[in-house]
């Protein structure tokens, strides 16, 4: 298509994302005049109805924001509450929380890499169609996902909205024998993850590099999940408690999700690419070697390669889970007593899609007075629109249908969770 005429790229219901949204891009020739990621998922207003609930209910209630990453919500909630209430947890509980989170990472990354994202690279509508030609790949993916789920089930009773996480620890912790029973499966999962790194590096990636501000949690000794400082490649280095001083949320008319920006700068990117680029040195050797073999070195600035990075993170999660299980000694008490008192606490943890911020204030009876929750997808939302502005311009000469599919694919690279951000997605490209 020449540089004349307007066109609209419009995807009414963006598929293979969690939640409901639509994408609208208006173009005049190769100039993009408007990009809107419209989130019409209805607002559920968790922050409002958390007020008046007891602090001990926060992990179970906030888990219901997202059926894909409930553990992320539970982990951010318990850490923020423990900071508010001045609670120190047992080191063994700390490791169990990392293990629990590894289960969710394996399950969520396997789901996204194979079932939601891979069909884009291979030209299928969905994993069901893909299974027709690549049944072995899909079966492997399902088993990998199942192993992540099995770990979550053992520790939390069930894979969606598990019931064991508590402020102060867990209601019940697994025995050594129960965890050791998972080791053969996790070893299989590690090999399958290494295969996944190799398999994803055979895919074709569009040439699309951007200068991102990557934001992730960084821990001095390990690939950060629940603790550390919040850092970026543009010099940010803060305690999670300072998050709201350095980031702002904007309410835009076209979306039921709030947009986040770095104050004074603008959009930023959270999730696998940010973690890999900022914390490559903290990955276990096996994961670093797998990345090197796939010729993947930080900084990775091509969004489409996030599928490879997720595969590397699968390797990390399996190695880490095995490490924790081998050394596991159950804590003396599954949880510490947490008395009611006033306090304010903030925490950030690394959900599979990126950082998840929680802040709570509680009163002397332990009742929540205010709550603030900033999910990863709302933090990435502005960046998704910025990417599409660049990417749609590159696709100006493409036939509309293909350009539309490509733009949808760009959105899916973020593994957006729109249920989280409003707590689905349509794509529309309008060309003038």
């Amino acid at each position, binding site marked *: 298509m020449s540089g004349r005429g307007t066109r609209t790229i419009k995807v009414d219901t963006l598929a293979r994302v969690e939640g409901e949204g639509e994408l609208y891009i208006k173009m005049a020739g190769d100039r993009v005049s408007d990009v809107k990621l419209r989130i019409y998922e209805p607002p559920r207003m968790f922050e409002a109805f958390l007020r008046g609930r007891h602090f001990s209910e926060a992990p179970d209630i906030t888990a219901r924001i997202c059926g894909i990453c409930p553990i992320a919500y539970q982990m951010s909630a318990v850490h923020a509450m423990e900071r508010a209430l001045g609670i120190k947890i047992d080191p063994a509980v700390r490791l169990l929380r990392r293990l629990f989170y590894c289960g969710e990472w394996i399950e969520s990354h396997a789901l996204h890499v194979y079932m939601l994202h891979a069909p884009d690279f291979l030209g299928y509508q969905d994993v069901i169609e893909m299974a027709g030609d690549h049944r072995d790949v899909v079966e492997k993916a399902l088993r990998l996902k199942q192993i992540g789920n099995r770990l979550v089930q053992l520790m939390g009773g069930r894979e*969606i909205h598990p019931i064991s996480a*508590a402020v102060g620890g867990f209601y019940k912790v697994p025995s050594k024998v129960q965890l050791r029973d998972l080791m053969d499966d996790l070893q299989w999962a590690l090999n399958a993850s290494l295969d996944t790194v190799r398999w994803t590096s055979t895919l074709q990636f569009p040439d699309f590099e951007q200068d991102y501000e990557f934001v992730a949690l960084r821990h001095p000794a390990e690939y950060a999940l629940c603790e550390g400082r919040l850092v970026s490649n543009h010099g940010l280095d803060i305690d999670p408690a300072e998050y709201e001083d350095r980031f702002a949320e904007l309410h835009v008319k076209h979306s039921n999700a709030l947009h986040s920006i770095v104050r004074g700068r603008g959009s930023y990117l959270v999730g696998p690419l940010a973690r890999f680029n900022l914390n490559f040195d903290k990955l276990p050797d096996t994961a670093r070697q797998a990345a090197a073999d796939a010729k993947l070195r930080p900084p990775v600035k091509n969004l489409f390669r996030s599928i490879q990075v997720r595969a590397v993170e699968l390797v990390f999660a399996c190695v880490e889970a095995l490490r924790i299980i081998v050394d596991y000694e159950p804590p003396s008490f599954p949880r510490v007593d947490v008395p009611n008192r006033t306090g304010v606490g903030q925490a950030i943890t690394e959900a599979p899609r990126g950082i998840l911020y929680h802040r709570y204030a509680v009163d002397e009876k332990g009742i929540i007075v205010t709550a603030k929750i900033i999910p990863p997808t709302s933090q990435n939302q502005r960046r998704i629109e910025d990417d599409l502005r660049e990417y749609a311009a590159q696709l100006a000469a493409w036939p509309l249908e293909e350009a539309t599919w490509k733009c949808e694919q760009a959105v899916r690279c973020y593994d957006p969770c729109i249920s989280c951000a409003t707590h*689905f997605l349509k794509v529309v490209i309008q060309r003038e």
Partner: protein
Amino acid sequence: MSSEPKRKKSGLKPTIGVFKFASCDGCQLSLLDAEDELLGVVGAVDIAYFPEASRNMLEGPYDIGLVEGSITTHHDAQRIQEVRRKCKTLITLGACATAGGVQALRNWKDVDEFIGVVYATPQFISTLKLSTPIAEHVPVDFELRGCPINKYQLIELITATLAGRKPNIPAYSVCMECKRKGNVCISVARGIACLGPVTQAGCGALCPTYDRGCYGCFGPMESPNTASLTSQFRILGQTDDQISRAFRSFNAWAWQFRRASEECKRT
């Protein structure tokens, strides 16, 4: 949308559509979480509409409609009418679709004030005063309970619907599951407040098995004696606020729990 030819309905297999309203996506994810059964299910039916899993979205009518989520906007109140017209059998999945979900906690509050808490520019937000279950809007053929649903109950329900038989999904209480597991009653033995006696089975008595009281995520069982449980909670030292909060969680708008949560504050 794509240049590829779209997969067509085979015309031989029954078709399934999955529809989402206000929810967390967890119940429809249960279908993808049934790793051992998934390829079997998709072999037996045509998944005609399931946006979370596929960009191939076929027009109805559908033999089975699976509906997740509650009705919270004017637009959704109209959309459910359309979904009902397109589906021969309509099944609701989970606490949101069956009882209004955790977002029904707004039903006791001033929703405009709630919007003000979350959003800087409340006039951009369009929402109803109440979060309501699907059956308050259209006739529903079967309501599957749980927050989230039990994936094996979902597979059983789909199988039974396709076979034209009644699904084997019990409406008795969590206590039955606890007894079958051989659990010692945490309420009797340890004085822990537990909603098990008034909550429908289906989870496998998870919470008591993990040393905590049931929090009622499968909603009221067939004949719940909530008044008796409220008295028992008081004996265990629970305050009226605590009892009210216990009934008001993920199935707060189910009428039995709703009434119990209001009565304990009055007496």
